[in-house]
């Protein structure tokens, strides 16, 4: 398809849908309704939206959907760290139940008992999986969960009169950028640890930086490298000894279910992205949930409300002594909570552990295959990878000039995703693969062989790569400074029309 931008489909007079009509008697009684608005507050002319018949709107968006490569459609292991796993269709069907879609969040508790039961049951499961004591499902992404945890850290120290003093949070460079960014939003100075030569977080460096100013320590384990830090308990001990809170970024806990937990590693808080490990879909980037667990000691700081159960009745508990308040409207993304609960129930305790084991098996299989591709490597310690690996094409780039971005463009031709990595590129020419438990050996081999072919092309026949994409919905983008020059960027169609008009007049 070569779909125009939706404004170009405008035909004056067409209509996409009719809104519910007002009843004649209401009009008789009330009149036009609009005159009640003070003149200054009335909209003078209608918004400049396009007018398009229903079929054409539908056709437009359906075509755009086909031009989007969902994880349902490909061997989705190129978006490493994102834990792209199979999204069970039955869970999607369950979320379309009007008994869930059409609930208002402020309905009396007795009319939403089923929904609260789902929240509570998921809470129980999460407690088992993490070892934490209470969960909140209000944070609606990993980033928001991290922000919430930073807020709890601050409130915790404030309660103890150390709010001003403890103004540093320690993180690591191979953790998600949001760890640093959210702590900074909460006013913290960020201290970032770099790994040792084997890729492990450096315990000596940690010792150097902890102090009475340490408010908290946040880390993922494994980090984006896929390397598990075996000394994690020592890390948390060091921070605790310094009076800091340890919180665990378990956005991706896919290799660990039933294997090892936040509690035993000494963390005070952790969160799970339900849209990663727990099979809620990513939906182009949300809505999502970062399920946040805390120890008994920190319960009083959780955002409200949380769900409690007593005498056969579920209720919303708003009364937490030192609650940080709210991070999101009402209760969070209920659909996602339902999906993850359904997913856990469809796997059971043994199944969850199999998820972890097969995710690790798949990843190690890929690891052994990928590092044998010409020009590819996996920096740092050999082995020790759990559910993902950050690889490098540094050698390939230096030998052929082909960069990881070139490869990304070429992978598109295979109908596959390939994500480089978060900035900064500590690992040079990076790419991060995470095969999860959802893909079969055959799937993995398909992905690997695409990489092999491209490597071969890089060494032997670069034109295929340089002209990529050849099979995509669109051709190679002309970036120049269209995205970074304020004179040229166009963040809306109206802006595009204005700026291209100017250009044409010159």
């Amino acid at each position: 398809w070569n779909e125009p931008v939706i404004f170009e489909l405008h035909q004056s007079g067409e209509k996409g849908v009719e809104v519910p009509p007002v009843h004649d008697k209401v009009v008789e009684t009330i009149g036009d309704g609009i005159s009640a608005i003070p003149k200054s507050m009335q909209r003078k002319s209608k918004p400049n939206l396009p007018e398009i018949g229903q079929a054409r709107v539908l056709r437009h968006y359906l075509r755009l959907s086909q031009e989007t490569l969902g994880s349902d459609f490909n061997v989705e292991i190129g978006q490493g760290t994102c834990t792209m796993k199979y999204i069970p269709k039955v869970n999607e069907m369950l979320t379309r139940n009007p008994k869930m879609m059409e609930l208002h969040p402020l309905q009396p508790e007795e009319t939403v008992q089923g929904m609260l039961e789902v929240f509570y049951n998921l809470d129980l499961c999460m407690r088992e999986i993490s070892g934490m004591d209470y969960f909140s499902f209000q944070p609606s992404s990993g980033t928001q969960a991290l922000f919430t945890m930073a807020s709890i850290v601050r409130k915790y120290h404030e309660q103890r009169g150390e709010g001003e003093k403890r103004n540093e949070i320690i993180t690591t460079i191979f953790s998600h950028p949001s760890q640093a960014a959210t702590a900074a939003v909460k006013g913290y100075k960020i201290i970032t640890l770099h790994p040792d030569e084997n890729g492990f977080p450096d315990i000596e460096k940690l010792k150097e930086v902890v102090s009475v100013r340490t408010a908290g320590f946040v880390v993922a384990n494994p980090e984006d490298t896929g390397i598990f830090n075996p000394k994690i308990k020592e890390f948390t001990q060091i921070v605790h000894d310094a009076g800091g809170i340890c919180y665990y970024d378990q956005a991706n806990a896919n290799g660990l279910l039933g294997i090892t937990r936040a509690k035993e590693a000494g963390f005070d808080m952790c969160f799970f992205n339900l849209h990663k490990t727990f099979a809620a879909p990513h939906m182009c980037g949300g809505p999502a949930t970062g399920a946040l667990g805390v120890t008994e000691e920190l319960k009083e700081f959780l955002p409200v409300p949380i769900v409690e159960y007593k005498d056969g009745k579920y209720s919303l508990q708003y009364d937490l002594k030192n609650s940080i308040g709210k991070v999101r409207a009402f209760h969070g993304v209920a659909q996602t909570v339902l999906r993850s609960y359904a997913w856990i129930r469809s796997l059971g305790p043994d199944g969850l552990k199999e998820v972890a084991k097969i995710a690790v098996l798949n990843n190690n299989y890929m690891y052994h295959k990928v590092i044998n591709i010409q020009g590819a490597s996996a920096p740092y310690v050999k082995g020790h990878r759990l559910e993902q690996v950050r690889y490098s094409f540094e050698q390939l780039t230096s030998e052929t000039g082909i960069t990881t971005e070139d490869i990304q463009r070429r992978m598109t031709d295979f109908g596959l995703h390939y994500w480089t990595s978060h900035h900064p590129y500590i690992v040079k020419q990076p790419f991060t693969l995470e095969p999860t438990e959802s893909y079969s050996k055959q799937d993995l081999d398909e992905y690997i062989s695409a990489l092999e072919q491209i490597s071969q092309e890089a060494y032997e026949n670069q034109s295929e790569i340089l002209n990529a994409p050849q099979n995509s919905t669109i051709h190679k983008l002309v970036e120049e400074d269209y995205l970074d020059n304020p004179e040229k960027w166009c963040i809306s169609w109206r802006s595009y029309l204005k700026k291209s008009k100017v250009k044409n007049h010159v």
Partner: protein
Amino acid sequence: MSQKVHPYIPNMVPEVQEEMLKVIGAKSIMELYSCIPDELRLKKDLKIPRALTEYELRRHIETTLNKNISTNEYVNFLGAGCWQHFIPAVCDEINQRSEFVTAYAGEPYEDHGRFQALFEYQSLVAELVDMDVVNVPTFDWGQAAATSIRMASRITGRKKILLAETVAPERSKIIVNYGTPDLHFEFVKFDIQSGEINLDDLKAKLTEDVAALYFENPSYLGFIESQGGEISNLLKEKGVLMVVGVDPISLGVLAPPSHYGADIVCGDLQPLGMHMNFSGGQSGFIATHDEPTFVNEYPSRLFGIIPTVKEGEYGFGDVAYERTSFAHREKGKESVGTQTALWGITAGVYLALLGPNGMQEVGQTIMQNSQYAVQQLNQIDGVKGCRFNSPFFKEFIVDFNNTGFTVEQINKELQEYNIFGGKDLSKEFPEFGQSGLFCVTEVHSIEDIDHLVKSLKRILAK
């Protein structure tokens, strides 16, 4: 289970595992975990109920959800931040498409459709608010407001924020939590008769260190703030930015805040095609003019339209990516991550379907229906249909102080009539005594409203 192959996990097949382990050079999967010290290993089984097959799961979840009573079954007058509106079927069709449901963060090539749909969403909302820049959606109104305010602070370099006292209390909590410790907040009083901002109080608090004033219009309490122009003038004198929260479904009939001087507009997309989902339908947006000082302070992704090597073809990409925490971690603007992209796409579909006329009609119908409701409620002894004397949109405070009943009692009784009454305001706004915030939209038929009025009459006659 340990024997069975789960449908979601193909490589549980033992023969395949063996083959793969051979490539790896390991004897067992557990060997791959050797990097985890024994003391960290979980020794027990998780206490989680046994696995259910698909059919059992379906029956279990459906039985559980059947304990709920939905707003399809009762007539619902709850709003207060999450509203029941008409949702075109095409919105659901698009946001249930497998492609959109399971896509994530692909590149502009393989996810061209996602980029375009979100760019179009930006463009459509831009028309609605009559501003040139709109972001990829954030979490919800509260968080969008919080970010708008932080942007204002960065732009002005000031740290004090004024909030109208009528800002939704739950949203205030989010704003304050996101703002502290960097920012300081102060509340501006409102006129008890109209709900509008008390301009004297505003003037008094408008010092040189104020970064922004934030208020909502239509407000949380439903009334329309009509002093937009005057407020804007006051702010401009002091170099203070005006940040306005708005319910976008009002913008077919109400002037968008940009028309009365807003610098940053934010709000919730949920009314534009999202089911309430027990609050899972919320989605925030932020809009500004196309000025680099503003654009560069967005933490969110902003998709822009660019050419491709093929003449006439459109491509899309991230505008000013260097702003973001993806690019610069804690040095980026706040933080960005998964937010509510699917609802952005849906809101785009909604606006494309309704068009200029539909948006005006829906706004008008809401005005008419809600005024009709107030008028009918006024005819009940002891009930005041609307506490304020100012015009309102969609929501209004029903005053029960003279009935001798509490809102809690009334709402309890209304359930007997299959009605969810309005939100009890007695805790959030004790100054209104026993009052409830009722919401009437285009989905309420005249029969629904009359049923409410009749039921109230019966209850209060007891």
